[in-house]
């Protein structure tokens, strides 16, 4: 379609020149020939240009537009991750935290208990749809790998959390509850589920936003764990 348009433009130019020669009157196209009699008031020289060819500055808008189109194209490529915040915690020390254990009778659990160990922290809630989606995968991980899977039950009702785990299975080594979200915010969590991988030095190595999938587990979590932890092998 556009090719046809361009072709017509070339024909248009020839056509216009031809018609000018034929009609001899109505000036359509200034070609450096005898100046048309309307705007130029008889002056043969265009106002500000010189005769020699020079950089066509009128190409700038087209060039600028193509640059913008390139940016937009990159935007499309990246659009799946729009709204996903790149965690600034990666490569930084994980926050120190301590939360009550679900049905723990007042017992608390936290980063102190996990010092010097690899662990996977999963933020979930019984109200969260995508958490149900990843639950199967978490169960598989808890069976196949021996890295501790710690759950933080965010903003949830204890009874409902209990039922959830009872009905769907409990993949967690330990489940803690964060009712007002103060720990979760410390981790920069903004939705559930989110899963973190922390190394024995206490650094956050990776963060998964959204449901865990087998591919992500293999590629981002298992690949970073020492072999002994990644796979139970038994």
């Amino acid at each position, binding site marked *: *379609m556009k090719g046809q348009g361009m072709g017509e433009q070339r024909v*248009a*130019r020839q*056509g216009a020149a031809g018609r000018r020669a034929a009609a001899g009157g109505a000036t359509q196209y200034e070609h450096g020939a005898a100046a048309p009699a309307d705007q130029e008031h008889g002056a043969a020289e265009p106002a500000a240009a010189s005769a020699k060819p020079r950089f066509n500055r009128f190409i700038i808008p087209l060039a600028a537009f193509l640059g913008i189109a390139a940016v937009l194209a990159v935007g*499309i490529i990246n659009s799946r991750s729009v709204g996903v915040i790149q965690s600034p915690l990666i490569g930084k020390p994980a926050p120190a935290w301590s939360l009550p254990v679900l049905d723990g009778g007042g017992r608390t659990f936290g980063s102190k208990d996990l010092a010097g160990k690899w662990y996977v922290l999963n933020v979930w809630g019984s109200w969260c749809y995508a958490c149900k989606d990843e639950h199967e995968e978490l169960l598989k991980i808890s069976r196949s790998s021996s890295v501790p899977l710690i759950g933080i039950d965010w903003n949830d009702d204890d009874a409902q959390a209990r039922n959830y785990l009872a009905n769907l299975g409990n993949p967690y080594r330990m489940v803690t509850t964060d009712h007002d979200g103060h720990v979760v915010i410390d981790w920069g969590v903004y939705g559930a589920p989110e899963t973190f991988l922390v190394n024995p030095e206490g650094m956050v190595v990776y963060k998964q936003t959204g449901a865990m999938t087998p591919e992500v587990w293999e590629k981002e979590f298992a690949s970073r764990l020492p072999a002994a932890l990644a796979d139970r092998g038994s």
Partner: protein
Amino acid sequence: MLPELGHFALILAMLLALLQAFFGIAGPAMGRDRWVSATMSAVAGQLVMVATAVGCLVMSFVDFDFSVRYVAENSNSALPLFYRIAALWGAHEGSLLLWILLLACWTAVVAIATQRLPRRFVARVLGVLGFLSFGFLLFTLVTSNPFLRLEPPAPDGIDLNPLLQDPGLASHPPVLYTGYVGLAVAFSFACAAMLEGRADPIWARWTRPWATAAWAFLTCGITLGSWWSYYTLGWGGYWAWDPVENASFMPWLVGTALIHSLAVTDKRGLFKSWTLLLSVLGFSLSLIGTFLVRSGVLVSVHSFAADPSRGTAILIFLILAIGGALALYAWRAPTLRSTAGFELAARESFLLFNNILLVIAAATVFGGTLAPLIAEALGQGALSVGAPYFRPTFLLPILPLLALLSIGIHASWKRGHLGERTRAILATLAIALALALAVVLGVYAGRHCLAVVGLTLGGWIILSSLIDPIDRMRRRLSLPRSILGMTLAHIGLGVAVIALSIVEPYTVERDIALGNGESARVGAYDFKLIGTREVEGPNYSAVRAEVVISRNGHVVTTLLPEKREYWVRKQVGTVAGIKNEYGTDLFVALGDDLGAGRWSLRAQIRPMITLLWLGPVLMAFGGFYALTDRRYRLARAAESVPAGAAGPAGAANERMA
């Protein structure tokens, strides 16, 4: 049956658009007059087919045809008739159909209203419009077909987005799109002029009414959207510099520059290539706006469901259409020259400043909106840009613009003659400043420097705009409609500036928690919650609160804000209670149930906010009024040009005849 008919009509429309584009461009190029006339038939045919398709979809909505996927996604058996029809543009596919319909309508109007223009030129304009229609139709049919079926039909639909079940928002897209699409006419006129290789600027005269009309519709559309946001979204904000809002604002800024630049090109044959560029730029921004809203590349409240494949298709269309037009520009613009002159204080100068400042403002908004994308493309990670960026950077070019308006409006063409007007200029400035100080210190008792600046600028604009019409009337001279329209539009701008200068700094907003019978003090008013009760609407159930507002013990009004839950989508919508008291809005929105009969409420006092809507309405009205000017009734075109004028208009008209 109907959906198939609609689908078929859409396919025919696409083919007709293709023919329209072909005949329109090839006909004049190859000198085939039969093709040139055939363009008209293609335009008519396309309109009929598009109208048929739209009619079929509307009937599918009205008849609750849930076998059509789009109807099932946007309607429901409990949806009232008005919204069933408005649901047509409730989501992506239908809103595209609305675009296409409006484009076909504008094209038809162009075909009808340009009887006295050269046939070949008009054919080219219609040809370019046809190319645009073809692109949209192809995109719709391939990626966003509204006539897709569900097999077997859904038992019921999932209802129209509750946000859209409101008369304000129902009317916002048609009006806004009329403006967006209208800019395509100016775009096509420019492309036609470039295709023809015209050196004379008569095309600017022809383009002016179309650009003005599109601009006026765009003004109305944006204002409607802003007004709707204010009373529906529940937190009483009217502009958030959201990417989708910016996407409509940028074409408006460029459109404003365009109508002013067209005036210069029309009158004096100057800025020809610049006006061409602006014509292309205006619609290009409309297209880019469409892209941003539908492709999912930006974070926004308003975007349609994102789909990267659609984004890619739109981007390709953008590159062809905009790239093509800009290539034409690069080819033709170097040949456009003029030798007209003007002095520093001439009207041309001020319009030059107007254009430069408006384009800077548009470019800044563009940069800020696209910044997150640019940062990511450069591998720099997240960049977030919001109101704290846009406010100061937008004001930077706009404040000088407002000041220059009040001066430039007195300047005459070519020589300016401002010396004769110095007294008037200074007097109006002094009066405006005095009034501003009086209002800020007296009425609002608050020292807000920007409020004084804004009030002065706004008042100065109004006073300056009135000088010339009053002078004419005193001298018993005629006041052409175009001048009166321009005056009204400028006054409207002044009113809007005044409104913003008061609303922004002097709004009082508080979130309060009240139980039955409790009251709280907000600003100069007392808000008392009487109680709440449950009510039901056609497709929702709601909690309605009764809030009594009083001042100094006297009851001013009772408001009934609602919090609705729509049955089907289970979404919550709000209806704020608003009462206007001499231009000030008393606003209350219902928040959350805090238990034990206590509710949270947002109360706002918005002074002078009525002017914020009135101003732009006046601007648009001024634009429309200017269109009724004598010179556009082309029957008198030959007579209105003075006999002995050596100006370009005379020569061009003679050549035309």
